[in-house]
């Protein structure tokens, strides 16, 4: 697998109180399905990110469990409400125990 896993999040940094905004996330990861074979016919073992969560000021808003049917470099878009200024935190959980994190501060104007 590519050694560098880079999470990316795109969302506005400012919002009106109570506004609903779309969050787009992308992470570079092979999401090896466990179905593929290498050149000599051996199965390549499964290695995926199996969970993604989004929290706002520590409270969970949204989470999703992923299976091998998710494409490589998983793209996930969803919606959040911004009740007040605060920090959104996004976490990807790799099957091997690694977690990848990204955060975004949003200011209510």
């Amino acid at each position, binding site marked *: 697998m590519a050694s560098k896993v880079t999470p990316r999040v795109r969302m506005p940094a400012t919002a009106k109180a109570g506004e*609903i905004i779309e969050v787009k996330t992308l992470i570079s990861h092979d999401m090896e*399905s466990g*179905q*593929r*074979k290498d050149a000599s016919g051996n199965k390549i073992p499964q290695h995926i990110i199996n969970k993604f969560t989004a929290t*706002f000021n520590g*409270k*969970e*808003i*949204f*989470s*999703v*469990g*992923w*299976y*091998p*049917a*998710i*494409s*490589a470099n*998983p*793209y*996930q*878009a*969803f*919606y*959040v*409400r911004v009740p007040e200024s605060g920090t959104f935190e996004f976490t990807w959980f790799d099957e091997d125990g690694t977690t990848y994190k990204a955060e975004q501060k949003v200011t209510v104007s």
Partner: protein
Amino acid sequence: MNSISAARTRRIFLQSTALGILALTQGAKSVLASAADVDALIKAIAGDRKPKEGRITLDLPTIAENGLVVPLNFEVESPMTESDFVKSVHIYAEGNPNVRVADYTFTPLSPKAAAQIRIRLAQTQSVSAVAVMSNGDVYATKKEVKVTIGGCGG
């Protein structure tokens, strides 16, 4: 080699090849899931309640040229308040080696039970979305996608 043994060798070759092909196709069939697997999963979620139609908008291309990257978009109609919200949404692909695609969990803090993702589809098949509401109601919908190139390696 005389002609008799050549014919026999050929017959044996044909028989073994035919057997090999039969084994291959049967093997390939058992690897992939079926619509019954999806029904079993929906039953496990819904229990005695019959899944209702409506409220879910499931958006997928009618024809996907590349099964490795198929955009999927869903939205479930709901006020998303403390008393009435969408608890979870499950995506199943009945023709993949593993039926499960994604399990979404929403909370009253999520303003919309909607998301977009890109999925893999091994072959032409129906993709199902099942939504569980906070009051226990279950909604289900299905959409067929024609896949030109399958997306599960092999």
